[in-house]
């Protein structure tokens, strides 16, 4: 009797496993075959609309040169996506201007097989925000975001380089202005496997200090959109990229990976900062329409390390040890994502 029960249980377990394998494979297939937007139309339209709003905001506030307004019908592109074949060409005069950006953003490199197999040298691209004439946020004591993030990026680079497996590339290693488009191209040229953009937040109305990490996606949160608009300045993206944007967004694979990378980094940053006595708030991981994340074809995140508007934090950021710590937390987050901290890292580095 008992043996029959055990037999039954084993059978059930086996069929669960088989279904697991099947669903796992189906999911992989589904990521390409059936767009997420296929079902739940109302929801998807809502998302699209908010994305669209964000795009428009970027356009208005970014350095987009000709102030071309868009007809209502185009804004409701959510409808258009249902019939991808018949999508009207949205390229207006603005389209010509941003054709290049467009290409950089959407050129379809199939991810090479060796890399998918996880056999590749991992190229990690670190993107210190702003630079040159674009100073980013400026603290009350005059500390500039561009300088701090560059310093932290350099520290992070040398930490990651301890492991022989990673090639680490910075999008800028000097105080120069690098357009977002170029950052995207750099990631492609260097065949980055993951992309991490680092920034400092600025919250003029609030004295608090927060950490948050973003990955590309629509946002219906006004604050996030506003932040995106700040960080997107310097891109020349036009609405003609809209359809492609949505398609990219649809690339769920990258989305899932990006989210995971964001979670690893955010939790390492927040947990360690808190442990070391920082009075800091965890704002978690969110999706946001940052142009620089959209263009990069691999898992990519944008981290707002802390707040330069917080006076205490600005003081601390001026110390080398604090910047070194932040770089270390970032390193841990990245290695966690790469699945390395669990064993191997102990051998790779002499800590």
């Amino acid at each position: 009797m008992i043996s029959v029960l055990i037999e039954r249980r084993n059978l059930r377990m086996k069929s669960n496993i088989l279904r697991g394998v099947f669903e796992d494979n189906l999911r992989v297939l589904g990521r390409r075959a059936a767009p997420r937007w296929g079902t739940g139309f109302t929801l998807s339209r809502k998302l699209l609309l908010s994305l669209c709003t964000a795009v428009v905001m970027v356009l208005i506030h970014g350095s987009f040169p000709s102030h071309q307004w868009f007809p209502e019908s185009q804004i409701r592109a959510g409808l258009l996506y249902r019939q991808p074949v018949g999508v009207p060409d949205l390229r207006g005069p603005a389209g010509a201007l941003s054709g290049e950006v467009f290409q950089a953003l959407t050129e379809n490199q199939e991810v090479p097989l060796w890399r998918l197999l996880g056999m590749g040298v991992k190229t990690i691209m670190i993107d210190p925000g702003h630079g040159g004439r674009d100073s980013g946020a400026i603290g009350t004591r005059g500390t500039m975001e561009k300088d701090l993030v560059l310093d932290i990026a350099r520290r992070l680079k040398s930490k990651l380089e301890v492991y022989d497996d990673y090639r680490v590339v910075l999008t800028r290693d000097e105080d120069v202005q690098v357009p977002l488009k170029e950052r995207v191209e750099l990631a492609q040229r260097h065949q980055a496997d993951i992309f991490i953009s680092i920034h400092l937040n600025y919250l003029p109305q609030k004295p608090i200090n927060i950490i948050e990490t973003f990955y590309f996606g629509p946002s219906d949160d006004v604050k996030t959109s506003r932040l995106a608009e700040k960080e997107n300045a310097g891109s020349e993206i036009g609405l003609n990229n809209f359809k492609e944007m949505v398609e990219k967004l649809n690339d769920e694979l990258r989305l899932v990976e990006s989210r995971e990378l964001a979670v690893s980094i955010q939790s390492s940053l927040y947990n360690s900062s808190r442990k070391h006595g920082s009075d800091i708030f965890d704002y978690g991981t969110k999706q946001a329409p940052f142009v620089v994340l959209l263009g990069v074809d691999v898992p990519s995140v944008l981290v707002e390390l802390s707040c330069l508007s917080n006076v205490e934090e600005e003081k601390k950021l001026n110390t080398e040890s604090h910047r070194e710590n932040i770089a270390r937390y970032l390193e841990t987050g990245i290695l966690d994502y790469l699945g390395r901290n669990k064993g191997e890292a102990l051998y790779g580095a002499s800590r």
Partner: protein
Amino acid sequence: MAQADKKLHIGIDLGTSRSSTAADNGEKRWITSYVGWPKDFVAAQVVGKEVLFGDEALENRLSLQICRPLERGIIREGIERSEEAVKAIIRHLVELVSKDSDARIHAVVGVPAESLNINKLAIRKAVSEYVHSLMVVSEPFAVAYGMGQLKNAMVIDIGAGTTDFCIMHGAIPGEDDQRTNLNAGDHIDEQLFSNLSEKYPNATFNINMVRQFKEQYSFVGDIDDEIKVEIPVDGKPVMHDIKDEMRRACESILPALIETTAELIAGFDPEFQAKVKKNIILAGGGSLIRGIDGVLQEALKEYGSCKVTCVDDPLFAGSLGALKLAQDMPASYWETL
């Protein structure tokens, strides 16, 4: 055209150094994972084929552009070639066991479980032309399934490029149940090569010779026998004692092996931990290292009592497991994919 009623199930283990394939028509083959294309027109005439595989490719390497499709080093030679190589080798593995081409082919391919874990789509793309329906699974999972170890078990697949760890708990293993590290066969080869170069600076040998020494004499822990091999010095064959160097090279993978095993197990609740520790299974070419099960079992003692065993047939454990999965999979699943 395929006949709907005729089906052939195939299990494939796609490895960095060796790949094996098994089908339910009883065919079972393995090859070294080499793919080679003739370098030029003359070479094409000499070898008489468009593409060569396995040892045949290796033997003709002077006429060929040759690669191990999944090897890390290949990246530098251009991405397209290595993609093409993966495609070619899978096709070859399918053809090796499916001469009878009018059956519908349902294949399960086991691939190294890696950290970025997004390989499935690519594999699927590479083989969609040759098989009717396909599933991709992680290599150690296929081994576990093949052995009927669905729960309370841990499989460690010590391959050439990577060592893959996988915990089975009655469901399909997720990210948290798997780990990969780079301390595997190739790493031992490199260690042995450098140990020998240091001790016998005048002797001439290459990495292939060294690998052969390893595959013949590998061991960890203590053994009584001597290990003497012939290595030419100034063109003359001389016998050398390489026991110490061999041990050091083979043992170089142990620290990471032990640590990763302990760490992975430590992530589970104590009751489950105790069960898993009693059922650790070594697979892959590295499980053939003499004494490795005993040494690992001994080393893990400090974490509680353990039992470590090796699979019977490391060369085919993966492909046979994949085949079993393919056979057990309900027909409706195959049709949907």
